[in-house]
């Protein structure tokens, strides 16, 4: 009996001990898991999107309207950031598409890229940036902006570091911004490009929101034999930019920013080496097509709650050219005065800028001056009434070579936009009116006569907001009239949209219908009908399914041949996005 009791007691004791042990183990495991969870945080998204496009033109064989999207496209994105503890993070930035659609730049026209071309195509990014404390390793595709005059617009596939111990800054990156692409006569024509290697480095000191002082070097070099046949119109180039940049932020919102840069650029590395021109060794050796010029910019001002005021001056010498900003237009001196004023208890907001741009600073072209002025003045007079007035001016004037009269183009735009709001018990009515007058004067360089191009736009929008319902409609009517000697264009648009939740607020629907009646001179009317809808469906807390569908029907008047020509465009975009978020899971 006693033995039985002992056994029973021992059994329960063991069970209790085992249970306690198991519970303890579970609790320990959970704690460990929590700790791991605490230590490992994942944020960001990943997803896949399909885009489809269709175009039907009538009568068949008519090609007066060209497709403007790829027939099919699939885009992938994988951009999670893994955070291990406080000090280590591992962000991924993978964004890529299945079908190349390049129309401008080095990859224009490419259809069947090699693996290297696919990786370095600007439409694809494959970047990983592991970071431990102040040390960041940069791998894969990186769009790095060192400064406004050195490098910033170009993606480079390669490797580098960004080290920020204390106030010190050291950055270095090298890689390939474009692969060699052979010229193809076509059709379709492939312009072709030379393989371009890039190097960039920055060394300096920085304290966030206080100061920055850094020296930048950015270099790019094309390999002349990397494309066979070589491009017809593009030359292999080489360029290096040295720049000094400094930012200073003082108390009470005062700031001062400045950068000075020198570029040495060879426009065609096949041209012979020049004993006459200065080289910038070890970075670059001068050819006959090598030029060396300078650029500088400075901004000074004050930022405050009620007032921002700043002056900016930018000079780009005629020969200043950098591989990091391939579309930079040089040979200019810009100066602008910018201001923002918040007044009347923040009910009045004025944003204005005035400035001038002078081209041909080095007298290599005909002098051109442009006056630029913008004003946007918003006032909330009461809860029921607000008014926005905007004015933009752009004037361009220059001599015109052999022609008797100089070029003079002046664009003026004035906009007035009053908005009325009426609040009822169940509904808020918003009525917004807008009128814009746009005048564009252009002088003929032969006769000296100025032609005026006048545009009037009037818009009325009504937005009712239901306080007890989930639907959100809006309606608008627009009238557009453009008058230029020889052509008068009239457009009238009716548009209605509706937005509402569905499926227990898991789905958000938005649809829009738009009809435009157009008329050119005395030709018959053109007709345009567009229907579109957005469906955002939250499948789970982290998974969403977004779909966009649109169809566009356009029928010309008899201004073009064949009469009755029309087309129907359809496009569809649907994709899943998964959001990583371990924080919320906790």
């Amino acid at each position, binding site marked *: 009996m006693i033995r039985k009791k002992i056994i029973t007691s021992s059994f329960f004791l063991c069970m209790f001990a085992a249970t306690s042990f198991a519970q303890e183990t579970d609790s320990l495991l959970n704690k460990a898991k929590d700790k791991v969870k605490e230590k490992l945080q994942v944020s960001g998204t990943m997803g896949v999107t399909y885009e489809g496009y269709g175009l039907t033109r009538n009568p068949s064989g008519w090609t007066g309207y060209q497709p403007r999207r790829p027939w099919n496209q699939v885009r992938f994105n994988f951009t999670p950031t893994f955070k291990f503890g406080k000090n280590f993070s591992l962000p991924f930035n993978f964004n890529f598409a299945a079908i190349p659609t390049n129309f401008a730049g080095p990859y224009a026209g490419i259809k069947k890229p090699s693996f290297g071309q696919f990786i370095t195509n600007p439409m694809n990014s494959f970047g990983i940036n592991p970071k431990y404390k102040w040390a960041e390793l940069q791998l894969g595709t990186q769009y790095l902006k060192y400064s406004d005059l050195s490098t910033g617009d170009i993606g480079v596939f390669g490797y580098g570091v960004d080290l920020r111990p204390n106030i010190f800054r050291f950055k270095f990156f090298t890689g390939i911004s474009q692969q060699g692409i052979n010229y193809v006569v076509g059709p379709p024509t492939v312009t072709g490009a030379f393989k371009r290697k890039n190097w960039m480095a920055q060394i300096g000191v920085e304290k966030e929101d206080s100061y920055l002082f850094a020296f930048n070097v950015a270099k790019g070099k094309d390999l002349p034999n990397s494309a066979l046949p070589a491009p017809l119109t593009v030359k292999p180039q080489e360029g290096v930019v040295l720049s000094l940049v400094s930012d200073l932020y003082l108390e009470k919102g005062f700031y001062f920013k400045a950068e000075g840069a020198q570029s040495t650029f060879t426009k065609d590395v096949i041209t012979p080496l020049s004993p006459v021109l200065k080289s910038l060794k070890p970075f670059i050796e001068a050819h006959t097509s090598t030029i060396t010029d300078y650029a500088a910019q400075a901004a000074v001002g004050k930022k405050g709650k009620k007032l921002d005021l700043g002056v900016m001056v930018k000079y780009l010498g005629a020969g200043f050219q950098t591989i990091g900003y391939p*579309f930079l237009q040089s*040979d200019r001196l810009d100066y602008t005065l910018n201001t923002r004023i918040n007044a009347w208890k923040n009910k009045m907001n004025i944003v204005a800028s005035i400035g001038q741009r002078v081209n041909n600073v080095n007298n290599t072209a005909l002098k051109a001056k442009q006056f630029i002025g913008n004003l946007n003045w918003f006032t909330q007079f009461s809860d029921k009434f607000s008014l926005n007035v905007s004015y933009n001016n752009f004037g361009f004037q220059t001599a015109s*070579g052999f022609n008797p009269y100089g070029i003079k183009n002046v664009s003026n735009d004035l906009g007035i936009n009053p908005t009325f709001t009426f609040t009822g018990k169940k509904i808020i009515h918003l009525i917004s009116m807008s009128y814009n007058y746009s005048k564009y004067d252009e002088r003929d360089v032969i006769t000296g006569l100025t032609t005026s191009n006048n545009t009037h736009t009037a818009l009325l929008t009504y937005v009712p907001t239901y306080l007890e319902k989930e639907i959100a409609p809006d309606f608008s009517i627009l009238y557009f009239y453009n008058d230029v000697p020889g052509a008068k264009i009239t457009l009238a648009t009716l548009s209605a949209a509706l937005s509402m939740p569905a499926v227990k607020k898991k789905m958000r629907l938005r649809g829009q219908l738009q009809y435009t009646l157009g008329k050119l001179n005395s030709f018959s009317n053109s007709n345009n009908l567009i229907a579109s809808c957005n469906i955002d469906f939250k499948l789970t807390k982290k998974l969403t399914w977004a779909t966009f569908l649109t169809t566009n029907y356009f029928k010309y008047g008899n201004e073009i041949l064949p009469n009755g020509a029309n087309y129907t465009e359809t496009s569809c975009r649907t994709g899943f996005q998964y959001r990583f978020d371990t924080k919320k899971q906790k």
Partner: protein
Amino acid sequence: MKKILSSIIAVFIFTTAMAQIKFNLIINSQPPAQLTEWSNRREVLTLIVTAQGALGVQFKIKTEIKTLDGTVIGSADLAKTSVFTPSSTGTTILVANDVMPLEFMVFTGKYKTSLERTGKLPADNYTICVQPVRPTDYGPMGEVICKNFYLASTQLPILMKPYNEEILDAKKAQTAIIFRWTPVVPKATTPLTYRLQVFEVLPTQGPVQALRSNQPLLDKEIVAATQYIWQPQLTFMPYDGETKKLPTFIWTIQSLDANHNPVTQTDGNGEGRSEPIIFFINPDKNKKSQKDN
């Protein structure tokens, strides 16, 4: 034997002295301002060399660039320039690289500075003079031929409207967007074609990346005019419910000459494309905009 040798030398000296090299210089009256571009385009400068009784006789080309008042601003360093021999057919055709080899051209003063900094001479009228000279003592072997030309660098259009980072109201933009730009300067003798391109910037892209990657939503060629009214036929809804960024677009003008080639091929990006700018479409102007990309 001595007599024969003397006779041969005498005949050679006589032939050389009497040899006449005739130049016919053809130059474009408004050549590219970038001097290195002259060698890329054969039509810019052609020198036709005719040798009269001077077959096998060598010569050099004495090239001088002058302002209209006759001041020499640049000349070929004859010690370094190439020696030419007329072809056996009697006519030799030379191009810019032969006549004005930039690596051996010596410019002076502000012209040298301008050339070093920009690759161009200051905008002005100039004269180019060429003369055949003997390779040994640079003595003349023919007449000096001069031709005038005018240099002014091509200035690509500057985009005016929509201005950079302008936020357009979607209700207006869905009906029409007006694009304006300045003309190419100097005004060309033949009408230029302006290729207007508008690209959508996807939420994962930077503006220039979108320009270099995407198919343009608008790709329109406009002859001579500097304004275009675009009926986008698009509903400018946000990309999706998650994206808070405003629909963003980047636009540019590509300037093409009569042969459909970019008007500048060695300046800037080489594609004749103006510096692109971006604009935003605000689908709901009553909501606060977030235009940062």
